[in-house]
């Protein structure tokens, strides 16, 4: 098996350990402080994977579903490492790690990652900017969806007055979750804007045009969401549900377009 796959397998195992470790800690009512270290180790392996694939491709490794999913998992981990410790949201890692595992497991499904990938010939810088910025944006938007799920869990527990679980004790406050979620939506939206502008500037095939139209539709949805939140306001529940639904929807759209 090639080195790139070993890196991805190692990253998946490390993230899985982080997820299980975190869940056990939370179940026992402790803070999952070690999850961040497992995620750092997973991040290093993801970098290894992207580096090997990048050398093979002689370009940003974003060709095919497997590479896109692996890049997305890397982007999600990156934003978690940037946002989580800064906001002291250790539990964010416990919710993020399973999503990273899921993306990477899909990437590892036979056939998703081309073996010995050919070099990208005649690459276009706008194309690479479009791909990289879009996937980075989805990393931020995925983390926003994770924060949304955390809010929904906390909101349900507060509403039902079920406040005894270790999970409740470890979840960050409602207001902090909503602030993080909103900032991640703005960040993801900003990166997606750059990606889409680059998409309009790159040379396109008919298939790429369809893909770009889908990306614009997703972008418009996110702009409407953050705009609505900023101008009119939205309840935490609606904001969170929208962030989760839009992220899932956009993944589904790109799987078929």
């Amino acid at each position: 098996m090639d080195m790139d796959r070993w890196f991805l397998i190692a990253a998946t195992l490390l993230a899985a350990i982080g997820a299980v470790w975190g869940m056990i800690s939370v179940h026992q009512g402790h803070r999952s402080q070690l999850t961040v270290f497992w995620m750092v180790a997973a991040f290093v392996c993801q970098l290894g994977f992207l580096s090997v694939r990048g050398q093979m491709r002689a370009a940003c490794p974003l060709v095919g579903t497997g590479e896109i999913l692996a890049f997305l998992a890397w982007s999600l981990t990156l934003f978690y490492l940037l946002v989580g410790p800064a906001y002291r949201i250790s539990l964010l890692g416990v919710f993020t790690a399973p999503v990273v595992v899921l993306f990477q497991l899909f990437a590892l499904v036979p056939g998703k990652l081309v073996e010995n990938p050919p070099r990208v010939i005649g690459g276009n810088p706008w194309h690479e900017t479009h791909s990289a910025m879009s996937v980075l944006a989805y990393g931020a938007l995925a983390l926003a969806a994770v924060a949304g799920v955390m809010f929904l869990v906390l909101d349900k527990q507060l509403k039902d007055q079920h406040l005894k679980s270790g999970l409740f004790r470890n979840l960050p406050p409602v207001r902090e979750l909503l602030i993080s979620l909103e900032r991640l939506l703005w960040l993801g939206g900003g990166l997606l804007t750059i990606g889409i502008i680059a998409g309009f500037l790159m040379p396109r095939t008919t298939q790429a045009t369809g893909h770009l139209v889908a990306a614009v539709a997703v972008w418009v949805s996110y702009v409407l969401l953050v705009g609505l939140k900023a101008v009119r306001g939205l309840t935490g529940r609606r904001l969170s549900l929208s962030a989760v639904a839009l992220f899932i929807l956009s993944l589904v759209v790109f799987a078929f377009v």
Partner: protein
Amino acid sequence: MELLCLGLNHRTAPVEVRERFAVGTASLGKAANDLVLLAEATEGVVISTCNRTEFYLAAVNAQAAFERIETRLAEKIQVDSSVSAHFYRKEKADAAMHLCRVVSGLDSMMLGETEIFGQVKHAYGAALDAGATGAILNKIFQRAFSVGKKVRTETSIQEGSTSVGNVAVDLAEKIFGHLKNSEVMILGAGEMSRITAQSLVSRGARSIFVANRSFDRAEELAKEMGGSAVRFDEWQSVLNRVDVVISSTGSPHAIVHRSDVEKARRARKYRPLFFIDIAVPRDIDPAVGEIEEVYLYDIDALEQLAEEARTRRLLQIEECERIIMHELEKLNLPGM
């Protein structure tokens, strides 16, 4: 040389007796030296909090030291000998065990409270600085502090809030995080509202609005808490800006209805709103809690949470005492 402890606390003495023996924080070092002289002991530490005054001594003969200190203290403070009935006396391992229980919050009025740890540490530090301690008390107190830390980290004796006010404040922090950006409105200037609002202010709540049927009383309470008074028929106008509403009026029917909150939602941009209803009959219509961004807790819900925390703490006592016993055995004290 023997370790001994003479003390009185909230269980053995009423406040009028406890206050006679109270020692100011600034005088604890001098009091420790006075104690050593009074008891003709070699070492002494005086602990004095609102719920207890305790004298820890190292002396050659415990019984003689007890007699001297009780007699001389009664003379010094000018109380009759009947005060002896309020004292408890502990020697050797019992005294060390008692100190560890005190430091761990097991002997406190509010089981598991953490403030006592700092108070004992301060009292010991004062005695140490005053030169009133020696090998025995240094060893016992330092071990008691390490045992206290172990008890708190290895058990859940301090987890959860045990009073309605603190449960409400904890919930407010779970919703809003730091309260420094939060504004609070009190409906009804009753005692429970005042206590709960004061807890919120002590944790950083930015401003307080007080609405009461008697505007004079609202102004009085607002002044006391550094807030603003609001006329009772104008409380809805303040709802747009506050994060927490504490209600405790004597009204026989609900005064906050779903429609009142619905009207304010748009202006509030659907921000989270926490209602604490500590009135009986309830002031807030339960339908208010059905609004998405509203978290509504009434007195029963808060009391139940406090009771659960108290029960959890009670269940931890045995484990705490096992840890204390295990740690003290390492000291090989006489009587262990």
